[in-house]
């Protein structure tokens, strides 16, 4: 039997979950309508009062909340409690645009810790583990979320913060870290560095990795698992909703279980905003059910995924979301075809020896869109012979074309010439002026 942190809420019957969701949704709406003028105004505009919501399906009648709403009500306008009840203020990691402010009451922090403890337990972390947190500590919710989750489980936390890769490796060796928390990109950076330093990953104690903060592919998972010698798990969250702790993978790695007693998940078509049936690919929309300081009603995450309600072998009855495939605002439309950077990533990883650092440059030549894929060269894919080099490039181009349905030019660039930000890499440059 695998460990489940909170079986009461993680293994409820569908009918029970839905009853609890309805109760908590109605209570949340009553509080939000009463205490947050932004919600009250939006509801009033549509002539809706909280009492109109009588079923989970009625949720579709409510207006969406977007990052723009948070910006318009900057900094504290969306809070549903007075500031003196807020014990923590964080900021969105600012994936796009300006940061937004989020707050937590004392109880919100407890809720958050419990939710993170759930997915860390699902990933295999126990009180015997030593958790090295290589997320940046600061306004970003990632580090604190995982920090609290580890402490709640009773694991030993090393609050390393991000950066200083050599020191990370030294601590990993000396303190015998068993669990690693960072972005998937940084996991690769660590692996690269270890290779250069001649550190054998098998000499480390690493057992499990909890990677989040950005979308990553299955092939990237395989690469991290082989190169770091751990079980790499994905988890999902966003500051506006709570931070990490919205969903996380169990050992079966067949999607991330969304903690449905705390969140209602919907999938919508990002263009028409209509709710899509279970299983469809679309944008994830989340509604919080337990948050006090900052309730979120139908928050548009911009993350593209799909939901799977079928039973999971782990015993949890919670719906699973697929690894995010990209962002609805990251989605590139090239020659009329929807392209997600993650698809190209998938192709690149499938090619043996190809490193994950790449960049997409989209431009418009005349009336035609043009996609260029820049790949950092490594020893494995550098050939002295022009002929072999060209053959390699043609092979990559062919694979990308068959995956995306649109052609791309593949170019090799100098090692380390693609800028890396701490954590998230800037992977898309769209030069088109439309």
């Amino acid at each position: 039997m695998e460990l489940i942190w909170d079986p009461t809420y993680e293994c409820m019957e569908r009918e029970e979950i839905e009853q609890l969701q309805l109760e908590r949704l109605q209570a949340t709406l009553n509080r939000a309508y009463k205490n947050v003028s932004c919600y009250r105004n939006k509801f009033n505009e549509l002539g809706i009062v909280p009492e109109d919501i009588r079923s989970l399906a009625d949720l579709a009648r409510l207006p969406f909340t977007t990052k723009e709403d948070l910006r318009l009500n900057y900094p504290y306008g969306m809070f549903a409690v007075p500031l003196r009840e807020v014990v923590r203020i964080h900021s969105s990691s600012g994936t796009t645009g300006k940061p937004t402010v989020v707050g937590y009451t004392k109880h919100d922090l407890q809720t958050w810790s419990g939710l993170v403890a759930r997915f860390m337990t699902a990933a295999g972390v126990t009180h015997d583990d030593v958790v090295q947190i290589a997320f940046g500590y600061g306004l970003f919710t990632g580090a604190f979320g995982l920090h609290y989750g580890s402490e709640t489980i009773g694991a030993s936390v090393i609050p390393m913060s991000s950066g200083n890769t050599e020191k990370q490796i030294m601590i990993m060796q000396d303190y015998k870290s068993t669990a690693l928390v960072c972005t998937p990109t940084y996991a690769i950076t660590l692996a690269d560095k270890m290779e250069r330093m001649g550190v054998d990953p098998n000499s480390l104690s690493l057992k499990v990795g909890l990677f989040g903060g950005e979308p990553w592919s299955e092939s990237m998972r395989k690469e991290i698992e082989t190169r770091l010698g751990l079980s790499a798990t994905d988890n999902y969250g966003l500051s506006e909703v709570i931070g990490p702790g919205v969903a996380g993978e169990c050992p079966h790695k067949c999607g991330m279980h969304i903690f449905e007693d705390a969140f209602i998940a919907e999938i919508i078509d990002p263009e028409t905003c209509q709710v899509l049936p279970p299983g469809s690919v679309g944008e994830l929309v989340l509604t919080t059910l337990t948050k006090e300081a900052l309730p979120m009603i139908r928050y548009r995450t911009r993350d593209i995924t799909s939901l799977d309600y079928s039973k999971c072998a782990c015993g949890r009855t919670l719906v699973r979301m697929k690894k995010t495939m990209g962002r609805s605002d990251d989605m590139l439309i090239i020659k009329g075809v929807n392209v997600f950077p993650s698809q190209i990533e998938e192709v690149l990883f499938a090619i043996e020896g190809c490193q994950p650092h790449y960049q997409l440059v989209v431009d418009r030549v005349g009336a035609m869109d043009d996609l260029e894929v820049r790949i950092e060269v490594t020893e494995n894919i550098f050939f002295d012979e022009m002929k072999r080099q060209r053959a390699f490039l043609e092979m990559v181009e062919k694979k990308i074309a068959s995956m995306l349905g649109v052609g791309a030019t593949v170019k090799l660039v100098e090692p380390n010439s693609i800028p890396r930000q701490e954590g998230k890499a800037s992977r898309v440059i769209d030069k088109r002026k439309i």
Partner: protein
Amino acid sequence: MLRLKNVNTFYGKVHALKNVSLHLEKGEIVTLIGANGAGKTTILNTISGVTPAAAGEILFERELVQALSPDRIVRTGIAQVPEGRQVFKPLSVEDNLELGAYLRYRQREAKSRIQQDKQEVFSLFPRLEERRKQSAGTLSGGEQQMLAIGRAMMTRPKLMLLDEPSMGLAPLVVQEIFRVIDNLRKQHGTTILLVEQNAKAALNLADRGYVLETGKVILEGLSSNLLENKDVQRAYLGREKKELWER
């Protein structure tokens, strides 16, 4: 075990409950807290059929009960201990208990079983046994409360609705009543929905709670969380009064 969905109840034109949804699992003690007039008692009366719901759904053990008459609802296994005890004052303690089993007598249940249940009530409340021949009106407030609970127990309920059991009682007596409620669950496995003015005591006893405001549920949570909630503290636990004054 009990499930309410979008329950709406009216007193004449007054919309007393607005879309109330809540649930109780078997063996749970759940409390309703809120100010006077928030709708706590109305929820109990709506479940027991005294003031039937105008709209919505009440499921007890997966059966719809909201259209049933109060006596039918008692038969399904729901008993209410009303606010202010409402014992039959001229009748003896024993007769009050016997009346609790009225439906069971009507259904020709074996008298020995009913008598056995009465003995159980007496063992839970020895003071009632001492006063079994006394008329209920001569009992103290605490004893009358015990009698009201005992009378409800005589229906062999699966779910007991308790309305303000501590009202007007001395602190020591309140403690005893709460101990009895706790025992009801422990020894008889009775599920309990409790309405209490004394929110702190109720939350200390209950597993979960719902906070009501003007006929609406505004919060659901584990008792431990509600005890720490600032809104709950300010409104119902008497903390931060000073700050409230300053506003």
